[in-house]
């Protein structure tokens, strides 16, 4: 799953290497617009429904946080 998430992040912002980064937002690698694109792509690729109240920067700040979110999100 981690590789697939890294692939998605790279599609959104190809100019950055995301692996090992602690906070994508603090590093300026993702902004609020990218977040919407990321949520939509994760929903589609993993066939999940990320709850609207979970769309907070802390749930997308690094790969581990995203993996945890994808795992706890209900399937479509």
């Amino acid at each position, binding site marked *: 799953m981690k590789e697939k998430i890294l692939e998605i992040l790279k599609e959104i912002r190809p100019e950055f290497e995301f692996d090992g980064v602690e906070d994508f937002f603090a590093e300026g690698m993702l902004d609020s617009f990218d977040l919407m694109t990321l949520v939509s792509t994760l929903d589609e690729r993993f066939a999940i429904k990320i709850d*609207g109240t979970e769309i907070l920067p802390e749930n997308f700040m690094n790969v581990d946080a995203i993996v945890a979110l994808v795992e706890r999100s209900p399937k479509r």
Partner: protein
Amino acid sequence: MKFCFKDKAITGMMVVVPEQERLFADDMRLFNAPENRSRKLAMVMGYRAHRVVEDGVCASDLAEYGFRKLFADGKLKPEEIDALVYVTLSPDHFMPPTSCILHGKLGLRKDCFCTDISQGCCGFVVGLIQAFQLLEQKCIRKVAVVNADVISRKVSPKDRNSYPLIGDAATITIAENRAGSGYVLADVRFDGTRSMALKIPAGGFRQPCSSETAIMSADAEGNERAPDNLVMDGTAVFNFVMADVPPMLADLVRDAGTDFGGIDKYYFHQPNKFMLQKLAEKLDVPYEKMPNNVVENYGNSSGATIPSAMALNDAEALCRETRRVCFSGFGVGLTYGGIVMNCGNLDFCKTINYPNKGE
């Protein structure tokens, strides 16, 4: 604040959108972001085209055009209007009230009650509640609720956060007493502690417009705007909608004696496609029951989006049959509210273009 009314109905709707259309493909050239990122965002948010007024056109110009069309088509007579509720965040002037300007231009009766309400995203819900309250008076039989805004005039074209989603429009909704319509349940809530999440900082008495308030600067995400322009904390507004709106609506439908499955159609304010899809998921409502295509066709026109969604998607059906509907508006204020009522068999429901004047 919860409201309950009996035998109140919407009997007609007219939507007026500017003929001038701007395409997202053109807008994105002004943004400080690579085109491919903007294109991805457009797909998620539903950005495609939006209708904006030409320079100098006011919201009341759109509304006046709509009224004159209704008068010309014999759908409405000026002398029938007992009250005019004008809901806007873009008044023609600080004074007089824009409802009074329209009153004069349209030749309404001197005993026609006129009022302006300063509301935006929840303005249809607030305006309709005001109309239903007025209809409790025996002397008031027909109320015209106008939701009109030209917010595009206050949004920086270099603001990727707001410009591509903004649209201008005016809508006219006729409310009347109609025996057998049943109960109308409504709820409106406010959170003024977060009132600055969506604002136009300059232009009022607190910070008048000046040469300094027109100076543009870039935010952390590269959006350029001035204090004269609209600014939105998109993340704060999104989180507010996801956290506060669903419980309010759950209360409302329960008070109406039903549940989310018992509503035929959800006509909600149209901030963007992504937010509406997430809201539909949160309520466990199929996307088909909650239209989300106003932003991609006209843009978000503040309080005018709910009638716009109705006329865009279901004009014929709304004139032919009655449905159990849920309206909901949420945003500036922060204000959020909903109405559950029977709606249909309208005398008219249509969208017209306000023609371009300049060349």
